[in-house]
């Protein structure tokens, strides 16, 4: 590694760290209903929305009502995108004259964007009209991210309230997040990206005569606006098929930096927001620290693997599958961030990562997307691990476990474990099915352990709502479209519902005051315990599968053996 590459990583971490409290504080103000500099501008709009939709912003919901509101809202979003894709040929803004999408693919894509996964079985420029991209997908990019934040807010309220039945109003959480946080941030980022040359136009693709007299098609479209929220909202669904490795989606090193930073920005800042909302910034920083430790561990292994000597190719620092404009370091940093953050956008092909770097990418997702993770989703996922850590380690101080003064009892343990089991079940069982069925195997682009990695990666990506692909696997088949669609649904809602159930039960509990005998969750010891539990639970669940995929592949590579 060169010095300038190290500097880039340090700069990246510095900006992430510096912006966390700034944005975190702003969001806390917004979510607590406080006054911000945007209030005069947006408050009338917010009120108008409530009036139009007949929402009383002061009415709070019980957790079950909150769940229903969320599910119904998401279902409507799903139906809209599903139908829109199938009839896009009859809708405007379709300069390429693209036909309607098949039902199975439409199902997969609608689920994918509703669940904040943004798994793309389709290729943007050849499958979807500008209308579908802008009014279907981009809208869902905002709303799915806002849904994640809403769930986090409900859980946070549950943890801080005393003996109450309600956990907030889903509609208010949704509107505030979208209006005050996501739209302004996406707007700023879109402008920045436009400045760097990301395309934003309604013109159809360009057909260009190259010097060798071949025809080259250059896809265009209203990309900048979608890419901004794609990164900010940890969505990851690129406007173009090649995602952020395509020059018009990610033209310069600076645009690359902006996009990488915005990948982790909101999830990181939410830890600070959380700290403020639970009245202890330390609690927020502890979670930030645990996420950062996990992130750096993955990053280091990946860098070590990528820059390590590869006996098969005979070189170190392979550029295969990486974008020449960005190089190895930026590709690895992006790959680590995008899998940590449940984003799934790419600027290099993960299929081409060295086995161990691929393992890190996959493992980041398998851990449950809790290393910063999706917007809102990462933090509530991590809070599930916090509850499990507190339960196991908390007993060791001789008290029944409590977090933020709330006793963790059978119900919370049951719900937490449900939220952990559901994605694991999807990844392991669905991959297993794909491994022994022709429908599953016929899509493989590679043989040997790498094939298994591709299958595992696909279902991890879907179950973890990440959306990145290992590529190499042809996912646009009936089998994969349906299986992955179901995986995304389970990975999203089998976590959200238990989380909201915990929020409801926690809100109803009393707060035990802190004493010297209380298990502390705001110190370095807890960071270590939390990291250990995340790795051990994830490791124990996926180590056997990984050993047959990337681990054996790595060992074979060292032996100079390929498939």
């Amino acid at each position, binding site marked *: 590694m060169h010095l300038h590459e190290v500097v880039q990583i340090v700069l990246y971490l510095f900006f992430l760290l510096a912006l966390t409290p700034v944005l975190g504080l702003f969001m806390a103000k917004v979510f607590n209903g406080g006054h911000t500099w945007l209030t005069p501008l947006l408050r009338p709009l917010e009120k108008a929305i409530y009036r139009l939709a007949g929402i009383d912003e002061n009415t709070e919901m019980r957790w079950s009502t909150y769940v229903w509101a969320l599910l119904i809202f998401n279902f409507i979003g799903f139906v809209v995108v599903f139908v829109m894709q199938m009839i896009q040929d009859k809708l405007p803004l379709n300069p390429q004259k693209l036909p309607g999408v098949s039902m199975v693919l439409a199902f997969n894509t609608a689920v994918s964007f509703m669940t904040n996964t943004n798994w793309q079985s389709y290729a943007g420029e050849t499958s979807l009209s500008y209308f579908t991209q802008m009014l279907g997908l981009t809208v869902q990019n905002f709303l799915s991210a806002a849904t994640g934040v809403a769930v986090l807010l409900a859980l946070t309220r549950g943890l801080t309230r005393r003996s109450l039945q309600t956990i907030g109003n889903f509609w208010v959480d949704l509107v505030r997040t979208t209006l005050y946080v996501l739209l302004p941030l996406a707007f700023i980022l879109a402008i920045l990206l436009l400045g760097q040359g990301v395309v934003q136009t309604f013109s159809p693709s360009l057909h260009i005569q190259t010097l060798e007299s071949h025809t080259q098609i250059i896809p265009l479209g209203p990309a900048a606006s979608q890419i901004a929220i794609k990164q900010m909202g940890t969505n990851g669904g690129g406007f173009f098929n090649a995602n952020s490795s395509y020059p018009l989606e990610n033209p310069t090193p600076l645009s690359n930096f902006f996009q990488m930073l915005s990948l982790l920005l909101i999830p990181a800042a939410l830890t600070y927001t959380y700290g403020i909302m639970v009245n202890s910034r330390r609690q927020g920083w502890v979670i930030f620290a645990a996420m950062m430790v996990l992130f750096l561990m993955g990053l280091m292994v990946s860098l070590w693997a990528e820059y390590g000597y590869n006996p098969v190719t005979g070189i170190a620092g392979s550029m295969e599958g990486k974008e020449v404009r960005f190089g190895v370091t930026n590709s690895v940093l992006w790959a680590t961030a995008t899998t940590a953050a449940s984003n799934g956008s790419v600027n290099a092909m993960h299929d081409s990562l060295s086995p161990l770097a691929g393992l890190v990418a996959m493992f980041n997702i398998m851990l449950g997307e809790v290393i910063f993770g999706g917007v809102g989703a990462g933090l509530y996922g991590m809070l599930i691990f916090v509850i499990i850590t507190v339960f196991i380690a908390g*007993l060791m101080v001789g008290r029944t476990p409590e977090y933020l003064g709330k006793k*963790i009892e059978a119900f919370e*343990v049951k719900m937490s474990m449900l939220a952990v089991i559901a994605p*694991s079940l999807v990844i392991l069982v669905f991959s297993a099915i794909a*491994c022994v069925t022709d429908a599953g195997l016929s899509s493989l682009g590679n043989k*040997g352990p790498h094939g*298994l990695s591709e299958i595992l990666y696909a279902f991890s990506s879907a179950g973890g709502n990440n959306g990145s692909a290992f590529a190499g696997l042809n996912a646009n088949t009936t089998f994969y479209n349906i299986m992955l669609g179901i995986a995304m649904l389970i990975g999203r809602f089998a976590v959200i519902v238990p989380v909201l159930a915990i929020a409801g039960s926690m809100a109803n509990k*009393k707060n035990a005051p802190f004493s010297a005998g209380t298990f502390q969750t705001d110190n370095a010891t807890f960071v270590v315990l939390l990291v250990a539990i995340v790795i051990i639970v994830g490791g124990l669940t996926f180590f056997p599968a990984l050993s047959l995929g990337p681990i054996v592949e790595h*060992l074979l590579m060292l032996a100079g053996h390929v498939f």
Partner: protein
Amino acid sequence: MDSIKKSPKLFDQAIILRALVDTFVKLDPRWQIKNPVMFVVFLGAILTTATVIHELTGGKSDMFNIQITFWLWLTALFANFAEAVAEGRGKAQAESLRKMRTKTVARRFVNGQEEKISATELKVGDIVVCEANDVIPGDGEVIEGIASVDESAITGESAPVIRESGGDRNAVTSGTRVLSDKIIIRITSEPGNTFLDRMIALVEGAKRRKTPNEVALTILLGALTIIFLLVVVSLLPFDIYSEKAAGMMKSHSSLTLPVLVALLVCLAPTTIGGLLSAIGISGMDRLIRHNVLAVSGRAVEAAGDIDVLLLDKTGTITLGNRMAMEFVPAPEVTEERLADAAQLASLADETPEGRSIVVLAKRDFGLRGRNIKELGARFVPFSAQTQMSGVDIPAMDGRSARSIRKGSLEAIRAYLIANGAENQVSSMSMHVTQMIGTDIAWSGGTPLVVIENLEILGLIQLKDVVKGGIKERFEQLRAMGIRTVMITGDNQLTAASIAAEAGVDDFIAQATPETKLQRIREEQAQGRLIAMIGDGTNDAPALAQADVGVAMNTGTQAAREAGNMVDLDSNPTKLIEIVEIGKQLLMTRGALTTFSIANDVAKYFAILPALFATLYAVSGANGPLAALNIMKLASPQSAVLSAVIFNALIIIALIPLALRGIAYRPRGANAILLRNVMIYGIGGLIVPFLGIKVIDILVIALKLA
């Protein structure tokens, strides 16, 4: 403490023998299913047994599979054994209690007539009479008389206790024996539901229900087991894919059913799963060895969570009796005259307080105790009405008559007014203020005024003596995050002084049952858990309200019903030990859970390379995944076998720890956590690596694989 000696040792031969029998009885599936983790082991053992039988009938005999099956059954049996041993100790105790419940004859009064019936026919509300050597036929209250009762059968304490009507010592327990005198008892419990019956049921664990935390932990362990089941089930397809990719023949697969079951059993948290109920039972058992009975495991668990201890001053914090510390004479009165009068007034006073006055006078002025009879004196005993005591000495041998009284400020004032000596009252108040200011009350003493023939002689300073070592005890409690609140009937000043001396965090002066209850409710409203100990009827509401209410065995039936624990020793300091036992119970659970989960890392490194040893082998026997065999275990078979053996043996090895509880020192949460994480977390990572390696060496040496 002798009560510990009388209860069985950790491993008593008789208990072990009985436990061995129970170990097999518990193989009943209805019993096994109560523990999801061990039920999976049980099913796994059945599956492998079926495989082995199938092989044997097919003429094959695979020693490896037979050994795996053998050790799986042992794993299930070891867990049963742990539970049986824990229960056995209680059962042994129950048996000795049951012997007391021999056929007792009750002497029941019906319409003034006495009739003899069997104790089992007694009903609530019956009136019975007991005289010396009678066994009390049922739980009840003494409504008439006073008697000394031998309660050693229940408490283990051989010294007889006094039971009398009225007051807070009127409860009698069935199975105890009247030693002297005669008492009339009203029966308060149905036969079969007496204190003794409940005690037997408790120690026997017959009605044992899972505590809330145990339920939560069982869910966690069950969920982990489900995850590992998914891991093992999905491993087969992954292996099929990999073998195909590696171009291997089907017959080479090392993923046989017994191996997969072995993997599942090793990964499932069997260590804590197998020991969980033993830990819970032994927690109750430890309480019993401290002579405390808890009505439920829930109460023991709550004890660990206690934030505030409400402690009675008398008997817990102080020695229980105030002692005379100093004579403070009135102006123009010599200290010796005051001491003389005070001693005379106290000669017949047999209370510790009175005796301490006699002793102080003797120590300071060499005044000998005199025979009251020779003086012809008449002792005026302390009464609740007058709140004072004294002595009247008639005129004799030229000496004028003396009438000495001692009592509290208020009592003496009332006495002076009643005897027409109002003039003395104002001067008394003045004297008192002059003499002591508020000094005595501030330093924790209570002034006792002494008068002779309506003339004020001075004051005796009485003081509570704080128990030695109690301050350090409270400091430990504070380190554990537990606040102590002293309850006393004393006034504010006295209470504050003792509170400061004893080092309690807070106090309630002039406490009434209402203020106690009020305080408990206030603390609970702030989310705290409260423990208190009490004996009287007026304590019953507070005992019922407290999260842990410990009733003293000497107390009233009402108090015993209201609390969720009974201290047979009636020792108020016991509350601190109860809290410690509760904490130790929870810590043991957490530590073994951590240990169990940490163990899995090593087991993966033993079993996975063994399963996939030949996968993707390019040339020679070993595939690349053999690199994961960092323990360098001899062969795939020996590796799997060693892991399974380790997994079984660790349960047996940890039974003493589960029964005894992990080492406990009163410290802050952070220090305790660090220590336990080091021992059971890091230790849990390392120990199995060593253990499995050692077993592997033995397995090879014994040619088992």
